[in-house]
């Protein structure tokens, strides 16, 4: 067992854990809280308080707990125009506190001035919030807190959300609903689904504060920001990818090609997820193929049905080390296709979000023997070995006897 431990130490030594530490520090994440200040926020149904009061108290708590490296902004909708004109009411969205380093006192003062006033222009507010967060390559998150559906048709906030998500590489919209009407829930779940965000129903003050805190902290999690790429319809024009995480958009029934250079002694590992960011039909699938020239090397596929956020698959393929001084290299084409389909009323552009990861690991895998070190196991093996030993013993005995007999006669 001592040897075992030694092996373990050797193995951990081979894969240094701190390898990522050398990479440049990622940009600090940006979050914008979008708060509904429409007239209906004065309804007193959250723990006996008005929705607005509950939201203000929750905001104070959230502002106190914002992680130091998060750049936070606040935007309101329907806070200023109390009139009847839809045109005016639907323009009513204002940045209450700019996205940047947070001054808690200032932000709290700004929130304290809010009073439930006007319309519910969710679509325009989201669009404006998208602009507030634009620029740079940071993780971006919008937390939308509202109590009613958008009153500014025909601009569908869900479409706005999908456009925003398609523009940038890493924007998520989480929604919190302060009421529980069917229409509001449908709209907010649609917005969340379109960006890979979440939807929460809030009926208590603590729920609102806790969930918002959780979402702001989620933004602070340091994860890799994928690089945007654009696959093409043929391999020859496809983008050449190195190891890493990429995003792309692929519409229904589309095929997208990517290329990767793989040298001798390397193993290519690719995995892909295609997201269902809108209403799709019940059955769906994904197929990823690795092709060189006319030959398909390997494929990964999966299919599913029912409620899902994405469907994923992966593949791997290794080339043995050549032993030459300059190892040969070849271009492998990756073809991604999906079999999602959608009802006729669903917009097909922009395409479904795709996340592609490409990994290249050196020293190809070693099949050796299917048995562990070629060792045997089981009673039949013991019987065979014993029988072989017995036969060998008998043979040896007889041989010796025969030799002695021959020697004697001579």
């Amino acid at each position, binding site marked *: *067992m001592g040897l*075992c431990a030694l092996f373990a130490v*050797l*193995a951990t030594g081979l*894969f240094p854990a701190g390898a*990522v530490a050398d990479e440049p520090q990622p940009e600090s994440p940006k979050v914008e809280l979008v708060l509904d200040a429409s007239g209906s926020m004065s309804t007193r149904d959250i723990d006996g308080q008005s929705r607005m009061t509950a939201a203000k108290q929750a905001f104070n708590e959230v502002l106190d707990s914002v992680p130091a490296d998060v750049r936070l902004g606040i935007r309101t909708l329907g806070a200023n125009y109390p009139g009847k004109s839809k045109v005016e009411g639907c323009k009513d969205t204002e940045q209450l506190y700019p996205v940047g380093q947070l001054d808690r006192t200032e932000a709290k003062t700004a929130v304290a001035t809010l009073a439930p006033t006007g319309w519910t222009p969710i679509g325009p507010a989201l669009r404006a919030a998208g602009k507030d967060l634009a620029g740079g390559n940071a993780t971006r998150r919008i937390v939308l807190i509202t109590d009613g559906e958008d009153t500014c048709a025909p601009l569908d906030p869900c479409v706005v959300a999908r456009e925003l998500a398609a523009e940038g590489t890493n924007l998520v919209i989480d929604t919190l*609903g302060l009421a*529980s009407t069917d229409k509001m*829930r449908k709209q907010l779940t649609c917005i969340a689904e379109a960006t*890979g965000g979440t939807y*929460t*129903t809030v009926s208590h003050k603590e729920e609102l504060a806790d969930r918002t805190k*959780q979402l702001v902290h989620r933004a602070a*999690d340091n*994860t*890799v920001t994928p*690089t945007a*790429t654009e696959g093409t319809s043929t391999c020859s024009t496809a983008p050449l*990818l*190195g*190891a*890493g995480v990429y995003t792309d958009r692929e519409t229904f029934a589309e095929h997208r090609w990517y290329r990767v*250079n*793989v040298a001798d002694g390397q193993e290519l590992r690719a*995995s892909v*997820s295609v997201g269902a960011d809108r209403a799709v039909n019940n059955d769906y699938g994904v197929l990823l193929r690795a092709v060189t020239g006319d030959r398909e*090397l390997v494929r*990964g596929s999966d299919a*599913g049905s029912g*409620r899902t*956020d994405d469907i*994923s*698959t992966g*593949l791997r*393929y*290794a080339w043995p080390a050549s032993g030459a001084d300059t190892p040969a290299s070849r*271009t492998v084409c990756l073809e991604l296709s999906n079999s999602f389909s959608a009802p006729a009323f669903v917009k097909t552009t922009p395409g479904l979000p795709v*996340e592609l*990861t*490409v990994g*290249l690991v*050196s020293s190809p895998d070693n099949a050796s*023997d*299917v*048995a562990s*070190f070629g*060792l045997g*196991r089981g009673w039949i*093996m*013991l019987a065979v*070995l*014993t*029988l072989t*030993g*017995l*036969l060998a*013993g008998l043979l040896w005995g*007889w041989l*010796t*006897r025969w030799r002695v007999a021959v020697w004697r006669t001579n």
Partner: protein
Amino acid sequence: MRTTRLTAAALAAAAAVLGSAPMAAADTASPSPSPSGSVAAPTEAGTSFRTATALQQGQTATATASTGDYLYWMFPATAGQNATVEATVTLPDSSARHGSATWRLDVYDGLRRHQACAAGHPSRTATAAAADVSLRCTLRTVRPWSEAWANDPLPGAYYVRLTVADLPDQDLGLAVKTEILATAKDAGGAKAAGGELAAPLTPVEQAGATLDPSAEPSASPSETVSEAPASLAAPDGGWSPGWWSDRWIWTAAGGVLGALAGVGGYTLTRGDRSRRRRLQG
């Protein structure tokens, strides 16, 4: 008669060695997870493959979430292990719910390939009155190596996705508490296999870099090779499954038996001769 007695003693010894083989098998089959006290169990879940929260084997992670969220975790498993994922969802108050809901646990390997549950109940329907629902999925034994075309479980990360698969629409967004535990048992010598993967199937954790398409295929692969991620710790004992299995005992016992049988066979032929000599004498 001395030799016969010796042979009998040797056979008895061999039987003792053999008898110990199944014992050793039972020994290695004891559960390996040992909750590591050094790292606190996660209290948050990820919401996509990329943001999945890393777990250790034997750690009970918790997360609060909304009904309808897709929650992701990942845990390490290595060759020769039978990994089991258990999840418990504490449902919202039944007065707030409108009907039964089906919850589902999906497990994916490090390449995001869906993995079959060999045992357990990865999907269950909770009635409108139920207070919680528990799900379980036991994976096939993790192989140390497989062909590129196979979907066998391999050493590396395993993603767990927990979500509600079917529910009344009105119940979306209600708060739930979830608890998840990944454990692994040693599958024993019967499943000990050979071969080795180039590296465990761990997630790629670096931003992509699109290369100049006109560039010649690069002959210096070191620049693009992905590194092992920092977030996912190797399981206890490392990614490499180690060299020990009870196959060593079986094989050694076979060798001993063979040798003894050889000696036995030899003495049989000698024994005949000595008797003949005595008869002649």
